[in-house]
């Protein structure tokens, strides 16, 4: 059956030019797919999108759609102009959690595509900004059918709404020499401990875990997650002096003076007369720059672990916040280490669920109650690594000073420092 195709003169202009066109892709679904349901959906989607381009307004409204047993994971979309574009008037997105680290075989991609072909619009994105596979465009009954099918072979919905959200982790140990931790394990242990909080939104607002295997923070965890896990090390970085010499032989001494030695944020590097490199490891802050420039010569040390920062988020409502260091260094090797990481996340989420205001991110709560109060609430002692510098304002009551100082020395003694 031939369909009456909407004219899309504005969208057609997005088919010109060398970058792959999403409009051409939607048109393929409209014109070439054997299923008339998909043809009609794509046609009406293009019609509504063209209408948005003409009027410069969006026409989707939210609502409530979920699958049996869950309260979230689907982004419901009902068209405000559904009368004109009926085949896409319900166009919900299912947020599906990807395998940690976004690894796929072509076989599993095909399997997901085949399932989606039966029930959805035929549009998929790998991945949305939170980290989900986004299956874009299904009507209300289809969401349950599609979920049932993919859930049977190991896929589950992610978070939507005020809940623990889908987590993200970098490729890390699977392919990267900079990796300082098992990102996949940290990612899965954290988020899978909270499946109930993922599927049944009941928190003050969203809560995101992101794991980056090193301070390059490829997952943007510090700026974009409530609970950022960043791989690091605390012993000396490894230096292969022969490889240092090879780099210098290749590009010249000046290049490495200008691009490595002088770029170290704490001036911890010295290039010696014999083209060897001296690292003052006590001064090194593990920014990663020298390792990035000389990946063959410089490597993370052996005493690896993670730094945990809490409270990163974007603008709404009090302005942008980066995560704050709450755990300067934590070993992550034994099962107990991982278990205590999960317990820390539980403690923080419990405290925030109890004390956060509605629609208040964890970082905003910390801003409101103060970092010291938050630390007390989660049972973590203050550490100078949590700050850029100590307080500037003298306006504080300090009559507990002596006790606090004694506690500091007692903790130092206990740690054998």
């Amino acid at each position, binding site marked *: 059956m031939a369909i009456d195709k909407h004219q899309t003169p504005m969208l057609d202009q997005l088919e010109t030019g060398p970058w792959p066109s999403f409009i051409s892709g939607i048109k393929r679904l409209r014109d070439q797919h054997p299923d008339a349901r998909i043809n009609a959906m794509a046609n009406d989607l293009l019609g509504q999108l063209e209408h948005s*381009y003409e009027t410069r307004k969006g026409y989707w*409204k939210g609502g409530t759609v979920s699958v049996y047993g869950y309260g979230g994971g689907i982004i419901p979309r009902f068209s405000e102009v559904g009368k004109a574009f009926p085949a896409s008037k319900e166009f919900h997105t299912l947020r599906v959690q990807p395998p940690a680290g976004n690894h796929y075989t*072509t076989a599993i991609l095909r399997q997901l595509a085949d399932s989606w072909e039966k029930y959805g619009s035929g549009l*998929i994105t790998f991945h949305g900004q939170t980290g989900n596979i986004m299956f874009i465009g299904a009507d209300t009954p289809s969401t349950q059918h599609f979920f049932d099918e993919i859930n049977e072979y190991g896929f589950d919905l992610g978070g939507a709404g005020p809940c623990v959200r889908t987590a993200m982790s970098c490729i890390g140990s*699977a392919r990267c020499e900079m990796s300082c931790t098992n990102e996949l394990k940290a990612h899965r242990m954290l988020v899978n401990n909270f499946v109930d909080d993922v599927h049944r939104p009941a928190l003050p607002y969203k809560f995101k875990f992101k794991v980056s295997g090193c301070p390059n923070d490829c997952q943007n965890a*510090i700026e974009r997650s409530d609970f950022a896990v960043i791989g690091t090390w605390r012993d000396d970085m490894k230096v292969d002096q022969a490889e240092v010499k090879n780099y210098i032989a290749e590009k010249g001494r000046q290049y490495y003076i*200008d691009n490595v030695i002088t770029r170290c944020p704490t001036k911890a590097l010295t290039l010696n007369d014999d083209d060897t490199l001296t690292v003052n490891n006590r001064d090194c802050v593990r920014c990663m720059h020298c390792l990035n420039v000389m990946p063959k010569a410089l490597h993370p040390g052996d005493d690896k672990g993670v730094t945990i920062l809490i409270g990163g988020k974007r603008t709404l409502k*009090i302005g942008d916040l980066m995560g704050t260091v709450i755990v300067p260094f934590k070993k992550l090797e034994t099962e107990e280490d991982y278990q205590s990481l999960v317990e820390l996340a539980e403690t923080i989420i419990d405290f925030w669920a109890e004390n956060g205001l509605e629609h208040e991110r964890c970082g905003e709560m910390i801003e409101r109650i103060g970092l010291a109060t938050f630390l007390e609430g989660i049972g973590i002692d203050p550490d100078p690594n949590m700050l850029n510098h100590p307080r500037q304002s003298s306006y504080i009551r300090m009559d507990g000073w002596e006790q606090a100082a004694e506690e500091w020395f007692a903790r130092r003694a206990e740690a054998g420092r």
Partner: protein
Amino acid sequence: MAEMREPIESGCPDPWQYMHPVMRKNFGQWKYHEHPRPGVLRHVAYSGDEIWTVKAGTQRILDLFTLRKLCDIGDRYADGYVHFTLRSNIEYLVSDKAKVEPLIKALEDAGFVVGGTQNSVTMISHTQGWLHCDIPGTDASGVVKAMMDELIDEFRNTRMPNRVHITTSCCQINCGGQGDIAINVQHTKPPKINHDLVANVCERPSVVARCPVAAIRPAMVNGKPSLEVDERKCICCGACYPPCPPMQINDPEHTKLAIWVGGNHSNARGKPTFQKLVAAGIPNNPPRWPEATAIVKRILKAYKEGARDWERINEWIERIGWPRFFEEVELPFTKYHIDTWRGARASFNSSSYIRF
């Protein structure tokens, strides 16, 4: 009613089953990597094994035909294992160097773009826009397509001083995130309220609480309970619109685009930084948004010519100073560039460091 099926709460799947065998074997044992050409990485493990990565840009919103085409290429020219990056580029992993060139050719013949590694302008991370979002001020995929058409040579090559992450966001919530360059919606007028609908649609106390500047208060309008906005206080952020759609913030004329620079989430050489405003009032001009793209290109040109090796955009500006940045990219400096938000004081210059 048919028997409902209980969900299996399996959460995040184990990627081990989908990972290239060479990566499984050498997990956590990688020694170094090289960058033989744009779009290609060679990682070498302590065992001597190597894995080659070929990275390609796509339209991100994949239709079934495109996804299957990517799979066909992966089966025929690669080892059947892929990885997606944070910015939705697809990476094919192969253990045999001989497969690299034919794989690149197959991807390019099929219309995909090989590149996006190291000091290139990689794929723009973006939001859903008019295609799916309920509150968008503009489109996302369309803006990105139009921009990537213009920036494709910088994706294919590695001619920038360091990597460039561009993001776009279709409202001020900025789901697209921080970027070296961010193109974000910026509303310029307070919401237009449909007072007939507010009482039935909005949970009024939550909407009042949502406002970051306490500009919203309950009011009776036309005999109905509604909300009113103190327009002298309103900062036109749109935060009230998602919980209360009758408070329409989007406007075909007054919803503009703004450009921000210097967001950098790496710790390398300096601590992570947030993006700063450089341009606003840019028309929201579908289908190709030429005005926004022109400014992005000016910024990239000045950065490419003026920055030193390894300097990200924020570091380059830090070195040359903001006055010179505005000069070099020929953008006006206005009172709107001066921060008014909490913590603004930290952005004021309290020294005699002046740039001439």
